[in-house]
C-alpha cells in the first residue's frame, strides 16, 4: 500500500500538470481565434480568383489559339510529389499522427510510382526524413506568422518541378479546419490543375487574350491553394490542441479525484488499524 505522503506528492504533481494544460488550452483558444480571422480575411480573394479562373478557363477552351497550358497537362502518374503540411509542434492530439498516417498510406498505395516529398512542418519532416530518402524540400517555422510570400515560394518550387517534367502529379496532404472538435483530413491533387467550374458565364471584354490570362492565373491559383492549406492547417492545429488540452485538463481532474479517494482510504485504514491495536491492547489487560 502506498504511503500517504507518496499519494500527496502525486496529487501535487498532477495538479501542476493540469495547470500547464489549462494554460495551453487558453493560449490555443486565443491563437485559434486569430488563425480563424486570417482564414476568413483570405476568403474574398480566393472566391474572386476562383470565379475569374473558371470564366477565363471556359473562354480559353473556346479559343483555338490558346492551346494547352503546361500546368494542365495530365501525364501518367509515374513520379509523384507529395506535399505534406503538418504542425511544428506536438501536443495537439492526433493532429499530426493522423495526417502522417494518411500520407504514409498514400505512399504505400503508390509504391510503384517514384515518390518525392515536400515537407512543411517539423513533425512531418522528422517522420518522413527517417523513412524516405527522396525529400525534395523541407520548410519549418512558417506557421508562427503565415506569410503569403512563403506559400508563394513553395508553390513556385512545386510549379517549377512540375513544368520541368520532374514530377507528373502533385498531391497536397493537409488538415482542414471544419469545426473546433476535430480537423478534417484532406488529400487533394494540386497539379495538374483541376479547373473550377463556373456557376455562370460572363461575357467579359478581355484586355488580354484568355489564353494569356490563363497562363498567369494558373500559377496564382496554385499559390492560393498552398496558402489556403497553410491557413486551414494552422487553424486546425490550434483547434486540435485546444481540444486535446481540454481533454487533458479533464483527465487530470479525474486522476486527482481518484487519488484523493485512495488517499482518504489509506488514511482511514491506518486510523482503523490504530484503534484495533488500542482496543486489543486494552482487552489484553483485562
Amino acid at each position: 500500500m502506498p504511503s500517504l505522503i507518496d499519494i500527496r506528492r502525486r496529487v501535487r504533481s498532477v495538479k501542476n500538470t493540469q495547470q500547464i494544460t489549462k494554460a495551453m488550452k487558453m493560449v490555443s483558444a486565443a491563437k485559434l481565434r486569430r488563425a480563424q480571422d486570417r482564414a476568413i480575411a483570405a476568403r474574398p480573394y480566393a472566391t474572386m480568383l476562383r470565379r475569374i479562373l473558371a470564366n477565363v478557363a471556359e473562354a480559353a477552351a473556346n479559343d483555338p489559339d490558346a492551346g494547352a497550358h503546361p500546368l494542365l497537362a495530365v501525364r501518367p502518374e509515374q513520379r509523384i510529389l507529395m506535399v505534406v503540411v503538418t504542425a511544428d509542434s506536438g501536443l495537439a492530439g492526433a493532429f499530426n499522427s493522423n495526417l502522417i498516417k494518411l500520407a504514409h498510406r498514400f505512399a504505400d498505395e503508390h509504391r510503384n510510382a517514384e515518390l518525392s516529398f515536400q515537407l512543411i512542418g517539423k513533425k512531418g519532416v522528422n517522420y518522413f526524413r527517417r523513412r524516405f530518402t527522396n525529400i525534395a524540400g523541407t520548410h519549418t517555422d512558417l506557421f508562427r506568422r503565415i506569410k503569403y510570400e512563403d506559400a508563394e515560394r513553395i508553390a513556385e518550387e512545386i510549379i517549377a518541378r512540375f513544368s520541368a517534367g520532374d514530377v507528373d502529379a502533385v498531391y497536397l496532404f493537409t488538415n482542414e479546419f471544419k469545426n473546433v472538435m476535430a480537423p478534417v483530413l484532406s488529400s487533394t491533387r494540386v497539379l495538374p490543375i483541376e479547373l473550377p467550374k463556373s456557376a455562370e458565364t460572363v461575357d467579359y471584354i478581355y484586355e488580354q487574350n484568355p489564353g494569356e490570362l490563363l497562363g498567369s492565373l494558373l500559377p496564382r491559383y496554385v499559390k492560393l491553394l498552398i496558402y489556403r492549406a497553410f491557413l486551414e492547417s494552422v487553424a486546425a492545429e490550434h483547434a486540435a490542441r485546444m481540444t486535446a488540452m481540454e481533454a487533458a485538463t479533464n483527465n487530470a481532474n479525474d486522476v486527482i479525484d481518484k487519488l484523493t479517494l485512495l488517499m482518504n482510504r489509506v488514511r482511514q485504514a491506518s486510523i482503523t488499524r490504530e484503534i484495533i491495536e488500542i482496543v486489543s491492547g486494552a482487552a489484553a489487560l483485562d
Partner: protein
Amino acid sequence: MADTLHIEITTPEKLVLSRDADYAEIPGKDGYMGILPGHAALLSELGEGKLTLTTGGKTESFTVAGGYVEVRDNHVSVLADSVE
C-alpha cells in the same frame, strides 16, 4: 443603371478596401483604364502603378502591383498581389 461603382480591393491576405466610388482609374497591364459606372464586363491583368478612386470630387490613390481586375455590374474587383 446605378450611378456609383462599388470597389473592392483584395490581396491574398486580406480585403484592403470595399467602398463606393464615382470613378476609378486602374493601371492595367497594357495601360491605364478609366472605369465609370455602367462599364461593360471586363477582365484584365493588373499592371504596376497608381490606382485612383474619385468620390464626390475627392481622390484617393493606392499603389498596386500585379494581379487582376474584374468589372461587372458596377462592381470593380481588384485582386492585387500587393497594395500600398
